[in-house]
């Protein structure tokens, strides 16, 4: 082989090395996994639409959650969301629609908390005519709304902190 072709192969090798690195990074860019929030019922339709769009759904942003609560409910609370401010799911937010939300350890709950101090179905947050309410579902360790134990449905206002086990949930608007 000639000197020139060897030199070309020599640099070709370096280019191939970097091609692998850049191709790997390219694959990583498209590799998203994790969770996103969708609504049940209407969600089925939204999910199909999301799948049809391929897997290019980015991080679970508000637009990707598929919840457009405005069309279901005209209440002001539609824009509210629940934010987990302490515990293992810290940082998670769930937009609140017109549907009640279950919190607990059971996988059927909306917000599944992996915490030994949580009950399977711990509490329920649901909308009523005068705003959101929270009720305890007979949990072992209790639900606390601003350090007050919740038994009967209590009003859950913006900025209220709800504590269950090691998790704290806040209602935000």
């Amino acid at each position, binding site marked *: 082989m000639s000197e020139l072709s060897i030199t070309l192969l*020599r640099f070709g090798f370096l280019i191939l090395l970097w091609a692998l690195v850049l191709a790997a*990074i390219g694959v990583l860019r498209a590799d998203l996994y994790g969770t996103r929030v969708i609504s049940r019922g209407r969600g089925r339709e939204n999910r199909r639409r999301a799948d049809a769009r391929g897997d290019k759904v980015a991080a679970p942003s508000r637009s990707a959650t598929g919840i457009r609560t405005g069309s279901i409910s005209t209440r002001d609370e539609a824009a509210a969301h629940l934010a987990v401010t302490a515990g293992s799911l810290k940082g998670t937010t769930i937009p609140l629609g017109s*549907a009640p939300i279950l919190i607990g350890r059971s996988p059927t709950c909306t917000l599944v908390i992996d915490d030994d101090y949580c009950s399977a179905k711990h509490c329920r947050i649901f909308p009523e005519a005068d705003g959101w309410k929270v009720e305890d579902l007979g949990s072992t360790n209790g639900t606390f709304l601003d350090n007050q134990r919740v038994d009967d449905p209590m009003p859950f206002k913006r900025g209220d902190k709800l504590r269950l086990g090691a998790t704290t949930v806040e209602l935000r608007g």
Partner: protein
Amino acid sequence: MATVAELKVRTGRRAELALLAIAWGITVLARGLVDYHAAFLELDELGIYAAGAAVLMLGSHLVLRRFAPHADPVLLPAVFALNGIGLAMIHRIDFGYAQYRGRDTDFGTAQIGWTIAGVVAAMVVVLLIRDHRRLRRFTYTAGIAGLILYLLPLVPGLGLEINGARIWISLFGRSLQPGEVAKIAMVVFFAGFLVTNRDTLALAGPKILGLRFPRPRDMGPLLLVWAAAILLMVYERDLGASLLFFGIFLGMLYVATQRISWVLTGLALFAVGAVAAGTIFSHVGARYNAWLNALDAEVYASGTSEQLVRGLFGMASGGLFGTGLGEGRPDLVPYAESDFIIASLGEELGLTGLMAILALYLIIVQRAFRSSIGVRDGFGKLMAAGLGFSIALQVFIVVGGVTRVIPLTGLTTPWLAYGGSSMIANWIIVGLLLRISDQARRSAQEVT
């Protein structure tokens, strides 16, 4: 009712196949260039080599397709590429030794055997361990097994002392380094122990200077194993391994407890230990001196910094683009095929090639941490993070030592350097990471 759903994940097997094709090209081209410059290029032989590489890559790819379909798609190609570069380089150093030194070595062929054994080991791990959570049952068994493995080189008749370090055992006429496998056992032990006790470690205990420190009784078993391992390694004069072990321990503790106080105490302890070791042990003091005054004529003449400086000269002659595979003189550096393979690669591939190699390591470590974030159980999180730390620190200690960023300590470069135990142990790590990433990327509905 709103619900939290999983993003649908691409399995990425097709992307993996494409990346493997590039890795295969790198492997074969490297070997071809080396053979050409050794005036030894026989297309039949290169063909057999290329076919063998293709069989290994395709075989492992098919195993993943069948048994771990959601495993990370980048991990395997990156590791195969590093391994292929290492094989070509070791083969090239064999030629260098024969040509200039009259030394007849056959590291290259032996390393091919170790690579095959390593890939098979990784696939066996993927096949046998269907669920990494099962390893949690062996928490204490792994801890004890790890300590025994560290102890083996001290057993008379079994242990071997090579170059002043007593870290080898002789088995079936081969020398093995049990510490490499012990590293994995220790990661399993730490992960299992920390996942059960992290709450007590993080929350209970006295507060000193605004930092919370754990209670002695929570910390006991952990400290015991840790101190025993560190003392053993210091006794065996295996500085690199003790540094690596300490780093993995600290990293996992931080990941488990989120306490910055751990990092501070750990670094303080490390500083004390490093200074103490430098004054107490003469061989450690000599290492410091060879590091700080490497280019001093007197130190160089005494031979303590000769290897390091020759490696630096080699990398300097490589420059930006390297001399080209097979065209340098890496044989001038002692242990060019194992401890100093990074210097050999720096000489022949230049800064450009070395950066690509480091980028590949970065990708592998990033994938380990990403799997750690993605996987749903605490044990898997800690184990993936621990394995990621082990690769990252090992590369840092070796490359840092060779490039004179930190004092030189003997450790193998994962997948690149010559050495059977290290090759198999690091491939087992790949197997574990593939398994954990499979769990992490699979959606929750499929995990039963």
